[in-house]
């Protein structure tokens, strides 16, 4: 009866707990700042905030949550909103603002600003505030920090090469000329090791070149793309020429390399960019050379991009008044803004903070700090479009073909970017204006499926049990009920939800249940979605390569390591070790191993085998992932080892006496005995291969191009990056069906090749 008491106590405690909590709890999601100083300041300001409210008789506790690493920056907020977790104030990237606003996920703070006597819009950079407004007078938050993209320059290198520092109004031609003059082979090994520019390659960094050439990303009305136009092709051709034709630029500025010590930091490129203010912080310890910043070179016109992080209040905020107060008194305060500028997060949105000596810090490079302010006249944000993330990822995949691997012609890439973006925009237009389903549909579906489940269970019940059977049934019910709760809550429920979602349109930014019915459209889109087709092909190829190779390798290792010796057991442990590591850690380690200048290439080039660019060549990235999967065969090997141990040793002895050599013993005696576990490893291996996620997520984010955008990664991106949960659910169900069919086929054919001891007794 103890458990009954426990349940009663829990039930009784619930309302009491609610009554006691008189203080209000404010949930704030902040960006991970890199320095302890900013944390200390934030916590100090938060404590003051709490103290002020306590003194006013309104006790408040602030829960400061962290967004996590850069890759998760956008995702965690969406998880919170989709999961209905409490969140009152959060940092988001400005490129996501439109999506949040359009889905009605944010609170318009204009009324709060209007009622706040201390509010002075002129204190903030107008450019930044404008980006936070909608067209109808709404203002959704305040900037954290922002930065225009500029060019970093190694002045010492230029001086050494006898090249004058270019003027602020320099051009592409100037850039190319200087690059040509400084790109050299310093150590005489026949390969260039000093380059003109370390070129950054993510879309925001590439956009300025397109704009400078006179091109645009989207038409003004946002209804169609202009990515296929000649100006865009001209810009891409220019960059492609620098990188892959003339080899005047190094590609170490790709996004994956951003946090590593690049060639610029090593003093081996004259320029680095386009890139933002944050690099100032990273470069502050450089003593080997003098560096400064320049505006980006111009072509037909001057242009640069702006990146910005901002604080907004979700519509679901429980204490919007407190959130507003925290926004203006803490994260929007002069002290915090100044601090974020000081530590290099970006330029403060608050003008006074940005212009303060603490931020400008005259003694510290760059000398031309004013360049950051001067270029704002020509600076612009990426288009604000509700589904910009999706278009960005479509473009990014094509850009990598031109800039990272270099084997795609710029004109082809531009044409494809335009086509994909237009198709997506058209489809989004078609989606809009669809009627919403009544709010109870999801609950009704859940209830109905629960009834079906219970009904099926009752109908399938066998003949009435006897007295002992009844007792056992009751006991079984007792043991099962806990598990049953977990099953319904964490497996059955989500499965039903995702099935319903796969026939609907739903953004995780909208309240749960606010669905639009689309019928089978999500499924219908799949065959025409080039990314999905590529993803399916890549995943299938990966499974086709990795599963059989792992099986063979695992079996080979098991055969080699089955002997009882301390050496074998040591090697066994070593082989199994990767299996106990988190895939994320494994992936992080392999990212270093497979790096262009990583350990593997160190060994390969030491042997004179060259240095393949594993994670940057579309043709190599799949083999690289297969290689990685082979590293983790420990679990399969363990299963094989256990099965080998279970084989009667007399069988092998008999075969030896029967004159069978090692190969015939393996093929005719051992392998047939292992067929049941081969089938097991095959099915689990296929399922695992089709579900690979952590490795591409950590290592390549699907690139280069789409070549490692495996199904589950694409599913995840569709749901949480592109906010298309219905489509993501459709992918999930297609994957489920695919794996179901594959498993069934394997099981059916297995009767022909699997030796099953239990079956041969009955047949």
């Amino acid at each position, binding site marked *: 009866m103890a458990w009954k008491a426990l349940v009663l106590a829990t039930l009784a405690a619930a309302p009491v707990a609610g009554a006691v909590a008189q203080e209000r709890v404010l949930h704030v999601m902040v960006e991970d700042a890199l320095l302890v100083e900013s944390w200390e300041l934030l916590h100090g300001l938060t404590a003051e905030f709490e103290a002020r409210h306590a003194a006013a008789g309104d006790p408040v506790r602030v829960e400061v949550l962290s967004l996590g690493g850069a890759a998760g920056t956008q995702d965690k907020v969406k998880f919170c909103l989709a999961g209905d977790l409490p969140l009152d104030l959060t940092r988001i990237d400005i490129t996501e603002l439109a999506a949040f606003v359009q889905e009605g996920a944010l609170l318009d703070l204009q009324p709060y600003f209007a009622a706040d006597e201390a509010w002075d819009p002129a204190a903030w950079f107008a450019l930044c505030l404008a980006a936070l407004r909608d067209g109808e007078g709404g203002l959704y938050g305040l900037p954290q920090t922002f930065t225009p993209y500029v060019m970093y320059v190694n002045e010492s290198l230029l001086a050494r090469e006898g090249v004058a520092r270019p003027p602020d109004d320099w051009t592409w031609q100037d850039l190319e000329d200087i690059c040509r003059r400084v790109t050299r082979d310093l150590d005489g090994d026949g390969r260039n090791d000093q380059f003109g520019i370390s070129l950054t390659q993510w879309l925001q960094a590439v956009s300025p070149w397109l704009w400078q050439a006179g091109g645009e990303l989207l038409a003004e009305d946002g209804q169609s793309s202009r990515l296929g136009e000649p100006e865009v092709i001209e810009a891409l051709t220019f960059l492609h020429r620098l990188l892959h034709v003339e080899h005047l630029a190094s590609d170490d500025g790709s996004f994956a390399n951003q946090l590593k010590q690049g060639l610029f930091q090593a003093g081996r490129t004259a320029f680095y960019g386009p890139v933002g203010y944050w690099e100032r912080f990273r470069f502050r310890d450089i003593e080997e050379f003098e560096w400064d910043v320049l505006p980006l070179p111009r072509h037909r016109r001057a242009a640069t991009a702006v990146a910005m992080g901002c604080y907004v209040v979700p519509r679901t905020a429980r204490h919007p008044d407190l959130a507003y107060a925290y926004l203006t008194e803490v994260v929007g305060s002069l002290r915090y803004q100044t601090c974020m500028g000081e530590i290099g997060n970006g330029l403060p949105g608050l003008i006074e903070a940005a212009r303060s000596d603490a931020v400008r810090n005259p003694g510290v490079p760059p000398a031309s700090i004013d360049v950051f302010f001067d270029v704002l006249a020509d600076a612009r944000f990426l288009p604000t479009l509700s589904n910009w993330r999706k278009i960005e990822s479509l473009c990014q995949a094509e850009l990598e073909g031109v800039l990272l691997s270099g084997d795609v012609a710029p004109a082809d890439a531009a044409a494809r970017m335009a086509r994909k973006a237009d198709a997506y925009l058209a489809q989004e237009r078609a989606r809009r204006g669809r009627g919403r389903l009544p709010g109870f549909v999801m609950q009704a579906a859940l209830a109905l499926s629960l009834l079906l489940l219970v009904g099926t269970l009752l109908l399938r019940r066998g003949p009435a049990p006897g007295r002992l059977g009844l007792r056992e049934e009751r006991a079984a019910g007792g043991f099962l009920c806990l598990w049953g709760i977990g099953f319904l809550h964490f497996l059955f429920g989500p499965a039903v939800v995702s099935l319903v979602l796969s026939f609907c349109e739903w953004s995780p930014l909208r309240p749960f249940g606010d669905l639009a019915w689309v019928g089978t459209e999500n499924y219908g889109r799949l065959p025409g979605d080039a990314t999905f087709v590529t993803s399916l092909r890549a995943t299938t190829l990966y499974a086709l390569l990795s599963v059989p190779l792992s099986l063979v390798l695992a079996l080979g290792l098991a055969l080699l390591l089955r002997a009882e010796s301390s050496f074998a057991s040591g090697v066994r442990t070593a082989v199994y070790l990767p299996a106990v590591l988190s895939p994320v850690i494994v992936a992080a380690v392999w990212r270093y191993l497979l790096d262009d200048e990583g350990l593997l290439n160190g060994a390969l080039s030491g042997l004179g085998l060259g240095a393949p660019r594993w994670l940057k060549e579309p043709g190599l990235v799949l083999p690289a992932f297969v290689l990685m999967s082979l590293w983790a065969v420990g679990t399969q090997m363990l299963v094989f080892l256990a099965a080998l141990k279970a084989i*009667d040793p*007399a069988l092998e*002895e*008999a075969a*030896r*006496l*029967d004159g*069978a050599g090692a190969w*015939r013993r393996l093929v005719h005696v051992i392998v047939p005995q292992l067929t049941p576990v081969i089938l097991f490893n095959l099915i689990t291996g296929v399922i695992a291969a089709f579900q690979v996620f952590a490795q591409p997520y950590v290592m390549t984010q699907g690139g280069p191009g789409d070549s490692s955008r495996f199904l589950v990664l694409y599913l995840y991106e569709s749901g949480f990056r592109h906010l298309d949960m219905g489509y993501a659910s459709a992918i999930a169900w297609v994957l489920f069906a695919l794996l179901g069919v594959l498993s069934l086929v394997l099981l059916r054919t297995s009767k022909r090749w699997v030796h099953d001891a239990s079956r041969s007794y009955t047949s």
Partner: protein
Amino acid sequence: MATLSLRGVSKRYPGGAEVLSAIDLEVFAGEFVVLVGPSGCGKSTLLRIVAGLVEASAGEVWIDGARVDDREPGERDVAMVFQNYALYPHMSVRRNLGFPLRNAGVSKAETEARVRRVAESLGLSELLDRKPAQLSGGQMQRVAVGRAIVREPKVFLFDEPLSNLDAQLREDLRSELKALHRRLGITTLYVTHDQAEAMTLGSRIVVLDGGEVLQSGAPLEVYARPSSRFVAGFIGAPAMNLLEGRAEGGVFRLGPLEIRGAPVSGPVILGIRPEEVVLEKDAGLELAIREVEALGNRTLLTCPIEGQSLRLTLPGGASSAVGTTISVAFRARDLHWFDASNGERLGVGRGDQSNF
């Protein structure tokens, strides 16, 4: 027909005790030699050394005049029947029987013909398409034997092949094996811990204990003249009575028991087989019956004597009750004497004329 000879074969496991010490054994062409001994005496190890599954620490193995120590098991031209048969579970009886031939590169047609012939001779023709799991114990045993004989090896090795079968089947197969050996005449080394099997099957038995050959000879010779106290106790069922007492002046004394003819003075062991103890009224040795085991064809009595016990067998119908007394006598020619300190046979006794 081939000879098998072992010369000074020893086996010592690293860090462990010596399992076999310097075994010399000669199996003549066509001979059926049974290695018998208790568990752990090293008999299976010896067999596996011959097969090549275990490598000897020292010594040589010769088959048909060729030294085979360095050959793979499959190259020694020996066949072995395992205790658990070791049939390949995923292969049909046909493939099991044909496997050794296919390994040797015999053509498919030839294999099929020879498999048929062997199956016929063993009564397996109806079972050729079955899998081992669909066979009874006796059938599996026959398939195992068939797999051994199908390629006509020089030497047969049997490792306790009957111990997994029930009593009736064991006796049937025992005589089948014997008939098979008579028919094929292949040199055979057979390991068992069952002394009845050893007695009935072997043309010669070799008693092993503690890694050493204790005695080797024709079954009845070993029975009649065991070379040591251990062999005496191991061969024959029920086992020989071994009474420990003292002898002085040629007279063995154990409580009420007094026997003349003891070959030495001091502590000595007197051996007499239960079936050779005779009932004789007023013979002078009166014993109380402690236990009666009526087996139908004979009755086994156990009587305490000075803290030891004496067992004797009587014809089946004899009626004896626990607690009653009987009067027994020993005939001089049935007595065996063993040294109490090392267990070795002493002096004269029945079978002295034996060469072994």
